[in-house]
């Protein structure tokens, strides 16, 4: 039976500087770091036993053979590979120890052909096995019982080859660490007795200091130091005091992590790395007890393991980390540290403004308050905005209405700066409030609607001769808006090499006024004389709404289309018509297309291809949009995601045309983060010391200059960025790091399976499982929910997802043809969000801030079902709306709800989720539901579909639903009592899952799985002759097997022939329904268990089946080929 598991990576280990092995469930995977491909994948432990540790070693005398020791629970697997190139795998032995194993270590024997395996176990025991690798025989040697007092949580060995002694360190529940020392000789009991128990009286020593269970213990490679970590969130380093005796003293305590630490590893140069629960990997310098680096590539999900390798040839150290998000990362230690040295930071004081003003008011203040007197004479300016001109020059304007040019450069080790005042506006009305560049000039928009244009050449000249000259740079100005300030100013200028030297250069600039207009000016620049030749107003782009304000713009230079984003998250497309292009009058343009994508202010728009642009907003969402010229300049969202784990608002895109790199500048609380959008990783995160102060980033190939203000200072950071920072990451591109609450599996073409997973991490993932390569590829992350996603349901076009906080989101499916080589497939389904709905709140677009509201939705959507559209009869009551989809929702307060998705035809792409009816069906939370479309013979207009739902006290609700009249919705609620059946005491405790199927003779099979460990199947017969339109279901037969799961059953599935069940005991069971045809009468004779299997997924939540594949979801997913 084929089975593939994708879930947490629990162990990781280097084989060489090119090959890495990591453990996912019971599978060990060999991965080639350089070629970025999986070399081998094999199951080493039986059942779903999770691998907890991997180690590999080579004996000097048999250097061609590499041995693997893999352990998990009480199993240890010993295997060897003859050559890493050919990967001839050979399993030597599989050992079942008598207790849980915490560490395994090989010990070389004097005898050439043998080695011993030491297994450190809980209860301070130690078992020894000997392996003869010429005869390939493995047998039990001895068991050492060390003095036991407490439950152990961790253990580690150190084998001293010279003195032939062995140290065992065991961490206890209370936080104490016990050390045992014994001679190697006692392991070599040559007695023929198969099982021997040695109560060893060894040297012991106790390390006190930790509080709470000890999670990890590691020795350094010489055995002189020991690193431990426990529930108290610190790492303690213990140092050996004497050479012979077993005496350790505390050497250092490393603090920084406020979460627990699962794994440790000593690094060269007195450093140590730790894998922490909060998703970070931290590196400390032990000697000064300082945390040097925090690696945050696991996006806040548990990191379970870390490993390191020192390549002695090139003397580099590699680090690998693996975590709950089924992702791993490989780093070169030198790179991470080098990055630390590469970056430098300089802080400059802003120039103080001398108070020339000696007005009466000021004097009065002087007389009374001397402290203010001082500051008023030497007031610090604060920077309002800044822009980089080039690597070494910066234009800023301050709140004192001064425009400065700042040159910053590094001379040797010192930073130099010069400030040049370009312009000073005394009048507040003329205060600069926006800035942009064109090729030869700087444009500054002012408060009164004037635009000042400085020549760049002038500025350069001024900066060069700043000492000698006393002249202010010339500037042109023109009144850009009729009234109001220049809120924003954009230009069509893009940095690209110009080949031709032209006399006149035409530029487009766009000026935003607060009344919702954007003025499109054509600028003509006389290059030869370096003056502005002509300014002409071309168009006025009007925002269609009253209080609209444009906040972002991008200009398509070949089609002249303008795409604008506004403060409410709408995107507009403006296009000057051909006849208007030639006319000389300035014309007013209205948008030809609009699209509501974001829920908040759009901060930046940028082209990434000829017809694809990105849009990003303050709410942290990033959309990739398709701009279609043919279809009337429409915009279609291609792909969306909440930017990244750390970025809350997006501020800027940075493009590197040379290397096709694309970066994103974003903010999360007080951190400015730069993201690499191609590799999806963080490049830099800088603490700005406050929320979104003035900042700008300049970027060229590998360097970043980041400038921002902080408390009257100007802070400059220089960052050199290396491609090799993170060497490699998992091919699957990560997965949910938390539990998956619901899963849907669908067949796709070419044997691929489409997988929709709803995670507790608020994400819905759309991914593809390739049945040939057995790989999961992430396609898309659907992210709109504000709490864990509970359920999903879909039909051909629509995907509905429901989550805690009573949130319901609908997504439209779009088939796109892709030729991305890494997917190895041609079509994939992308989903676009259409609308969202909050149960107890009004429909709100600003979903991101809902959890701050006082009326927080407290109920959860527990399950949803898409019902056939024909159920809803709409007698032209709402002719203005197109009806798209009907959904049935159950909630944790025991209520049912029916929602419909409507589209307004006038305003295209305006979608609303409309609540049809909502009523309380049960006193207790409803956990699951299923629907059954009745066969034609049983259908009447008042009975077309049956809905089944179960709650937490073991009740089953069956409700028959006919056609619903929109005009008479109250009838639905009134008829619920009449048309429903409640069967109590189906199970003791909660019913966790339910699945319904129709049998050959039109009987209905209902399978339920509950808290009481039982899988129950009931067969109901539906009476087709019925007078009162009442539901008349008759229970025919029940099958309750008296064996099965040993913990609550949490997922069931049936198709009428087989039943699958799965539960908290991690067992997957397949039951066969035996049928008989006596005298042409179809009947079910029995229910038989035919297969059971321990699976790797813990906390199983649901089963989904597509053809011969089934998927189990929980902490990770497992694919099983069941046929």
């Amino acid at each position, binding site marked *: 039976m084929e089975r593939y598991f994708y879930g947490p990576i629990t162990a990781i280990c280097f084989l060489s500087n090119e090959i890495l092995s990591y453990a996912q469930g019971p599978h060990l995977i060999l991965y080639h770091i350089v070629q970025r491909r999986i070399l081998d994948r094999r199951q080493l432990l039986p059942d779903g036993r999770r691998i907890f540790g991997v180690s590999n070693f080579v004996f000097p005398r048999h250097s061609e053979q590499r041995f693997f020791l893999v352990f998990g629970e009480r199993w240890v697997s010993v295997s060897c590979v003859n050559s890493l190139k050919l990967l001839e795998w050979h399993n030597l032995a599989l050992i079942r120890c008598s207790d849980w194993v915490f560490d395994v270590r090989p010990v070389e024997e004097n005898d050439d052909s043998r080695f011993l395996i030491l297994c450190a176990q809980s209860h301070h025991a130690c078992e020894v096995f000997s392996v003869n690798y010429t005869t390939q025989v493995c047998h039990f040697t001895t068991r050492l019982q060390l003095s036991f007092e407490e439950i152990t949580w961790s253990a580690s060995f150190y084998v001293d080859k010279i003195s032939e002694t062995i140290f065992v360190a065991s961490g206890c529940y209370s936080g104490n660490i016990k050390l045992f020392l014994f001679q190697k000789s006692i392991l070599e009991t040559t007695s023929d007795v198969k099982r021997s128990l040695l109560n060893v009286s060894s040297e012991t020593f106790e390390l006190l200091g930790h509080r709470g269970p000890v999670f990890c213990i590691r020795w350094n490679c010489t055995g002189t130091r020991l690193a431990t970590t426990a529930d108290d969130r610190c790492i303690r380093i213990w140092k050996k005091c004497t050479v012979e005796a077993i005496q350790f003293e505390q050497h250092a305590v490393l603090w920084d992590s406020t979460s627990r630490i699962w794994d440790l590893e000593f690094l060269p140069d007195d450093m140590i790395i730790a894998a922490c629960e909060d998703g970070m990997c931290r590196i400390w310098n032990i000697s000064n007890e300082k945390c040097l680096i925090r690696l945050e590539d696991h996006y806040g999900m548990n990191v379970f393991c870390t490993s390191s390798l020192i390549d002695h040839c090139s003397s580099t150290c590699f680090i690998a980390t693996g975590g709950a998000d089924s992702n791993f990362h490989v780093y070169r230690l030198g790179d991470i540290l080098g990055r630390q040295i590469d970056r430098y930071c300089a802080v400059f004081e802003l120039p103080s403004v001398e108070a020339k003003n000696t007005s009466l008011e000021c004097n009065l203040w002087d007389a009374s308050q001397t402290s203010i007197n001082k500051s008023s004479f030497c007031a610090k300016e604060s920077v309002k905005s800044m822009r980089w001109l080039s690597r070494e020059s910066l234009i800023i304007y301050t709140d004192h209405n001064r425009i400065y040019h700042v040159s910053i450069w590094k001379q040797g080790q010192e930073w130099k700066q010069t400030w040049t005042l370009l312009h000073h506006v005394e009048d507040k009305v003329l205060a600069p409030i926006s800035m942009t560049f064109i090729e030869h000039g700087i444009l500054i928009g002012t408060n009164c609607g004037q635009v000042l244009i400085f020549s760049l050449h002038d500025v350069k000249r001024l900066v060069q001769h700043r000492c000698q000259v006393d002249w202010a740079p010339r500037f042109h100005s023109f009144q850009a808006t009729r009234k109001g300030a220049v809120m924003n100013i954009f230009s069509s200028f893009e940095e690209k090499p110009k080949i031709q030297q032209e006399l006149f250069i035409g530029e487009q600039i766009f000026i935003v006024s607060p009344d919702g207009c954007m003025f499109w000016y054509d600028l003509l620049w006389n290059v030869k004389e370096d003056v502005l030749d002509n300014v002409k107003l071309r168009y006025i782009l009007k925002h269609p709404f009253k209080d609209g304000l444009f906040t972002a713009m991008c200009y398509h230079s070949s089609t002249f289309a303008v795409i604008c984003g506004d403060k409410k998250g709408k995107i507009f497309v403006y296009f000057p018509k051909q006849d208007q292009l030639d006319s000389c009058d300035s014309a007013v343009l209205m948008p030809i297309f609009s699209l509501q994508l974001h829920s908040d202010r759009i901060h930046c728009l940028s082209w990434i291809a000829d017809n694809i642009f990105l849009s990003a907003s303050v709410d942290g969402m990033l959309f990739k949009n398709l701009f279609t010229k043919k279809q009337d300049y429409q915009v279609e969202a291609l792909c969306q995601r909440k930017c990244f784990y750390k970025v809350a608002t997006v501020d800027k895109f940075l493009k590197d045309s040379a290397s096709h790199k694309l970066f994103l500048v974003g903010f999360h609380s007080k951190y400015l983060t730069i993201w690499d959008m191609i590799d999806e990783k963080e490049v830099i995160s800088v603490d700005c010391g406050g929320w979104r102060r003035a900042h700008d980033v300049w970027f060229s190939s590998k360097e970043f200059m980041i400038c921002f203000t902080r408390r009257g200072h100007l802070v400059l950071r220089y960052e050199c960025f290396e491609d090799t920072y993170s060497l490699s990451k998992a091919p699957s591109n990560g997965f949910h790091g938390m539990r998956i609450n619901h899963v849907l599996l669908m067949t796709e073409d070419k044997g691929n399976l489409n997988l929709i997973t709803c995670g507790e991490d608020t994400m819905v993932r759309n991914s593809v499982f390739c049945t040939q390569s057995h790989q999961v590829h992430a396609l898309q992350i659907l992210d709109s929910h504000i709490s864990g996603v509970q359920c999903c349901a879909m039909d051909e076009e629509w995907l509905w997802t429901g989550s805690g906080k009573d949130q319901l989101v609908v997504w439209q499916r779009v088939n796109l043809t892709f030729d991305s080589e890494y997917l190895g497939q041609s079509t994939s389904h992308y989903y676009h969000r259409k609308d969202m709905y909050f149960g107890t709140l009004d429909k709100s677009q600003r979903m991101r801030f809902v959890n701050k509201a006082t009326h927080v939705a407290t109920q959860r959507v527990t399950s949803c079902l898409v019902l056939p559209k024909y159920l809803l009869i709409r007698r032209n009551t709402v002719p203005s709306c197109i009806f798209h989809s009907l959904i049935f929702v159950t909630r944790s307060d025991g209520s049912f709800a029916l929602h419909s998705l409507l589209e307004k035809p006038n305003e295209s792409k305006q979608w609303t989720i409309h609540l049809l009816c909502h009523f309380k069906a049960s006193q207790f939370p409803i956990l699951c539901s299923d629907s059954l479309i009745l066969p034609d013979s049983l259908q009447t207009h008042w009975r077309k579909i049956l809905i089944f739902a179960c709650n937490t006290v073991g009740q089953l609700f069956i409700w028959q639903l006919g056609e619903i009249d929109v005009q008479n919705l109250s009838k639905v609620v009134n008829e619920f009592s009449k048309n429903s059946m409640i069967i109590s005491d189906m199970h003791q405790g909660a019913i*966790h899952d339910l699945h319904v199927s129709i049998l050959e003779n039109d009987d209905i099979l209902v399978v339920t799985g509950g808290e009481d460990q039982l899988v129950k199947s009931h067969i109901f017969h539906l009476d087709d002759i019925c007078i009162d339109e009442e539901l008349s279901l008759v229970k025919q037969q029940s099958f309750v097997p008296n064996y099965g799961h040993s913990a609550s059953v949490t997922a069931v599935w049936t198709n009428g022939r087989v039943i699958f069940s799965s539960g908290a005991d991690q067992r997957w069971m397949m039951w066969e329904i035996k049928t008989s045809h006596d005298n042409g009468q179809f009947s079910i004779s029995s229910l038989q268990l035919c297969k059971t299997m321990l699976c790797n997924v813990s906390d199983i939540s649901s089963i989904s089946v597509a053809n011969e594949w089934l998927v189990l979801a929980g902490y990770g997913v497992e694919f099983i080929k069941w046929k």
Partner: protein
Amino acid sequence: MGRTSKDKRDIYYRKAKEEGYRARSAYKLLQLDQEFDLLKDAENVVDLCAAPGSWSQVVSQRLRELCKGQATIVAVDLQEIAPIEGVTIIKGDITSRPTVEAILKEFENGMVDLVLSDGAPDVTGLHDLDEYIQSDLILSALNVATFLLRRGGTFVAKVFRGKDTCGVFSRLSVFFENVTVAKPRSSRNSSIEAFFVCRGYSRPSFWEPTLIFHKDPSTEVLQDLEIEQECSRTTESSESQERMKTMMPFVSCGDLSCYDADMAYDIDRNCQENSSFATSLPPVQTPIHAAYENALARKRSAQQTN
């Protein structure tokens, strides 16, 4: 479990604060008592892994209601517990001999009627390890219980139901006539937690209470073809039916009129019932020494200096 997320602060969390219990787990014992009448015949009660002491609170309160003047209640934990009226508190490791002797010293009038253990290890997120250590804790609690319990006594222990629950169940069945898995309604449906309620203690003839709980030291080495077989094994029907014949009796306790832990109740409704204001209450008992407080203190001081 099923399709329910682990929910935050529910009705029982709120009620525990209102009614002065130190933790919401108090309601689990109240509901278990409702179902099994645990405290009716009990006079000598030991609460193992008692911190923060909510179960001891319930026991002392219930025994006072039942007018048992001479009842002795002992609460034991590694962590410190703030004093509770009518409860003797012992700080110590339940697996060490001095602690067991100290417990026995408290009971002048014979042996113990009821041993409770609500101990939960710090959950790591890797369920296998959590379940293993939990079952280890039960067995060590059982080990102590065999020292303390009178014939016919009762033992209640928390269990995370997982892969190896059956093993623990069968071990408990050796010592007790009647073992039931119970899930109080105040325990969340999203949690795999349940309780073993073991009644009718009788010491088997072979069992001599010692403090070291010996595991069965049997090992097995599989080689060659056996490895393949073991790894690719799916249990076929007849064999597995035999293996899984032991069905653990399951009881869901707490009557239907009480609150459901998976449901969110409006504060208003609660207010009307209890006529108290909807204000957030302080914790009933703050932890005396949390294991992580050092880490937090250091983090805070680091923030101040920056």
